[in-house]
């Protein structure tokens, strides 16, 4: 029971990341009609926003280490600490949450530049060409990041106060041994709130109404005299913010490296396909479902029966779903059936 509960929690934060990326992918599919293979790169860029913030905050100068008195020792001390003392230390500690504020405008800008500069010329080209050009873009972004940050993963710790584990077990009546890292719980809550706000935005605002109408019938919305192109730009910006935030918050869980985007992208595509192309609810549902399934498959008990199942479970599920329900779990008729 305890083990099952832990695996469920394990799946939820990974599932949250899948769901957030898949949500953005589905938004761009549904409205712009573009298959964006560079979406994973946006997730990766988000994670590197956190890295950049951390680096910026810890710009240091070499000072004399006063704690060592036997000989002259020097250490690196961040300017923030020199200027503001403990407040500075605290700001550095909170670099990941702070970088959320930093990531929103940055990702919005990247998204808009990408859409205006490249993607919009591909609305009327074939899907194969869209895939190819965004694939090329993903490689370019990835290599640029590698050039500046190197090939190794960069640890980006979460604030100290949440670096421990939460004793969930005793809180909900299971054994005390059930503990779980705070940050992962926060990630889950964070992803839920982002998903909630995206849905609320689409449901309760006029802008969202137009976007949903555009997902149902783009040409008709255009005929009604609405400048759909401009809205699409904003939708793309939104999708990149969602992907970027998913990346920022994931940085403490998985130290970012330059190819993390592609690893997540393949899985997120599978998530979208399982959930049903063009269905936002499907993307979220499938994201969490596959995340949880993947973590269950990683249990030792299951691995003993079926070795290696954790590596391929997601793909197996995708194959089964596509063979039995070709439109995915919640796919609508007529979406991407070329």
């Amino acid at each position: 029971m305890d083990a099952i509960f832990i695996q469920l929690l394990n799946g939820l934060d990974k599932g949250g990341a899948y769901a957030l990326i898949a949500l953005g992918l589905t938004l761009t599919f549904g409205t712009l009609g573009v298959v964006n293979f560079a979406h994973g790169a946006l997730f990766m860029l988000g994670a590197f926003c956190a890295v950049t913030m951390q680096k910026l905050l810890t710009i240091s100068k070499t000072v004399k280490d006063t704690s060592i008195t036997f000989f002259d020792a020097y250490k690196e001390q961040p300017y923030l600490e020199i200027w503001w003392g403990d407040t500075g230390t605290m700001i550095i500690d909170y670099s990941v949450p702070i970088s959320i504020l930093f990531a929103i405008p940055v990702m919005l800008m990247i998204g808009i530049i990408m859409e205006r500069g490249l993607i919009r010329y591909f609305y009327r080209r074939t899907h194969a060409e869209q895939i190819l050009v965004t694939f090329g873009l993903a490689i370019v972004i990835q290599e640029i990041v590698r050039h500046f940050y190197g090939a190794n993963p960069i640890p980006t710790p979460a604030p100290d106060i949440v670096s421990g584990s939460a004793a969930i077990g005793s809180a909900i009546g299971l054994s005390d041994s059930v503990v779980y890292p705070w940050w992962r719980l926060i990630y889950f809550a964070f992803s839920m709130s982002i998903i909630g706000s995206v849905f609320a935005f689409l449901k309760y605002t006029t802008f969202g109404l137009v976007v949903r109408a555009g997902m149902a019938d783009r040409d008709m919305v255009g005929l009604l005299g609405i400048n759909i192109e401009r809205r699409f730009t904003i939708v793309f910006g939104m999708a990149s913010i969602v992907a970027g935030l998913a990346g920022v918050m994931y940085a403490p869980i998985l130290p970012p490296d330059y190819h993390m985007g592609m690893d997540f992208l393949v899985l997120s595509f599978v998530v979208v396909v399982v959930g049903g192309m063009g269905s936002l609810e499907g993307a979220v549902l499938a994201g969490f479902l596959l995340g949880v399934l993947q973590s269950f498959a990683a249990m030792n008990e299951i691995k003993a029966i079926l070795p290696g199942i954790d590596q391929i479970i997601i793909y197996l599920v995708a194959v089964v779903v596509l063979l039995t329900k070709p439109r995915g779990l919640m796919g609508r008729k007529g979406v991407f059936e070329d």
Partner: protein
Amino acid sequence: MSPDKKILRLNNIWLTMLLFSLGVLTMPWWLEPIGAAYPDLLQKFAIFGIFAIGYNILFGLTGYLSFGHATFLGVGSYTAVWSFKLLSMNVLPAIVLSMLFAGFFAFLIGYVSLRRSGIYFSILTLAFAQMSYNLAYSVLTPITNGETGLQLSKQDPRIFDRLFFEAGEGLPSTTLFGLDMNGYQGFYFCAVLLIIAFFISLKIFNSPFGLSLRAIKSNQTRMSYTGYHTRPYLMAAFIISGMYAGLAGGLLAVTDPLAGAERMQWTASGEVVLMTILGGVGTLLGPLLGVGIIKYLENIFSSVNSQTLHEFFAFLPDSIVTLVVNFTGLFVGEGWHLTLGLLFMIIVIFLPGGLMQGFEKIKNRFTDKA
């Protein structure tokens, strides 16, 4: 005038084949001036040429964009190395087996993936490729030797070889009935196979089967209305291109008998897509042109380092040199993939038909409008 019609009009197959064979076999001679005439690179030209020709049969004719063809390349390599380990150092059983195994894998993957078309197909093949890659790295380590890669060793049984002669000192090299498969001999072996592969692809392009595949590309629905069951055709094309990839993988192992999982990564699949579209999808010579350009550039670009750049830009004033070197350094050496990605984008944006389309455009400008 589309390139398609041209291929159909080209009825003198034997003349084409003669010219093509001459071109391929004299490569060591006419590539000398650009410094590409050494066996290692020539072998790569021939091997990836086979890979791209096979990929073109699927993507060029049917329009199905597979993102998982590197899987078959990897399967071919592993099979060939196992054949060297277990059976014999002779290359013939190795490449035959690698084609068979790759074909079998293509059957399995194609059976599922071909149920969907368009982006679904691309994503499915990508998913399968990632799955095979993950498996090769983790659970299948007894077969693939995981991260280290599969290598020959002195303890290998090699049952057929043992029947005829004693195990020699050191690791044996791959042979074709006593002929060592390295250097130029290796190249000529690959070149002969490339010529055969090209011949088969030429035949397929001109056959009714090829025509049906083209019909699937232009309008699959109409094709089924005329009474064709399209899936067997697609399946055949998928398996054939998988076998080409398996042959290429086998040849990679022939020229250098080791196999690693990184050959199956999605970047490798992406590379063959790039080669094909760079030259020209659906044209006969295009993919080969793409292979030549990419492999040649890769060879040059990745060997350049900042030292060579400094020498190259020595004529510039000192103040700019560092700037220029730093900027160009982005694109060479380790940054070769960046150049590749940019090239990829530029081709898709401006010349979706590849270089062959570009040549066609230039030719039309000079003939039709004059």
